[in-house]
């Protein structure tokens, strides 16, 4: 029984497995976002009058919060994808785990920087 939990932690809860499942979930979320994005643009393009709704929506705080999570998801998916390309080519395999933590930190920084206005 003790060995079972030890093995479970070893192969299911490793960083590689975590990055794989997060990659899959973020990919599915981005597919849903892509469909919504195309649909909204199509809808507003057909009815130009209603475009002011879109402008009003963008100033709502809930949209800002969702935007933060969107950028976080995109950034994680993109940077982890680059990490996977490097690993498939045989580079950076020894530092893949610290690289995963770095990717998460960079994604958080980029998402925060995107949502808050520039200091200029």
């Amino acid at each position, binding site marked *: 029984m003790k060995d079972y939990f030890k093995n479970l932690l070893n192969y299911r809860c490793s960083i590689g497995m975590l990055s794989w499942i997060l990659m899959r979930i973020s990919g599915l979320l981005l597919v849903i976002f892509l469909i919504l994005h195309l649909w909204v643009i199509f809808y507003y*393009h057909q009815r130009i009058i209603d475009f002011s709704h879109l402008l009003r929506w963008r100033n709502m705080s809930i949209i800002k919060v969702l935007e933060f999570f969107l950028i976080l998801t995109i950034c994680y998916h993109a940077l982890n994808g680059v990490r996977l*390309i490097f690993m498939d080519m045989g580079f950076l395999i020894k530092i893949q785990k610290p690289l995963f933590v770095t990717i998460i930190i960079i994604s958080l920084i980029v998402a925060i920087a995107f949502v808050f206005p520039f200091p200029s």
Partner: protein
Amino acid sequence: MIGWLWQRISGFVLLILLFIHLWKARTMPFNYEYLRIQLTTPKWVIFNILLLCLAISHALNGLWQIGQDYLMGKNKKIFSYFLLIIGICFILLGLSIFIL
């Protein structure tokens, strides 16, 4: 194999294109003029169509690869054709924004 390779190539191109797309969305003022430029200037029309086609093919290729993990036999084939039809529909929906 070709799906795996295409996922890498389109992903890398999308990384560059999406960076430009988000940079524009972040720095330019968001109003009707912005959308009008996006939909009529030839440079940005080509950019957006490329972005659309690559994003949809990347997304559906990803869904197809998830399907490879969980589906067996006949369902796999039905799922592939289903994704193909969905992809054509969405590319037509996207292109209609530029044409209509």
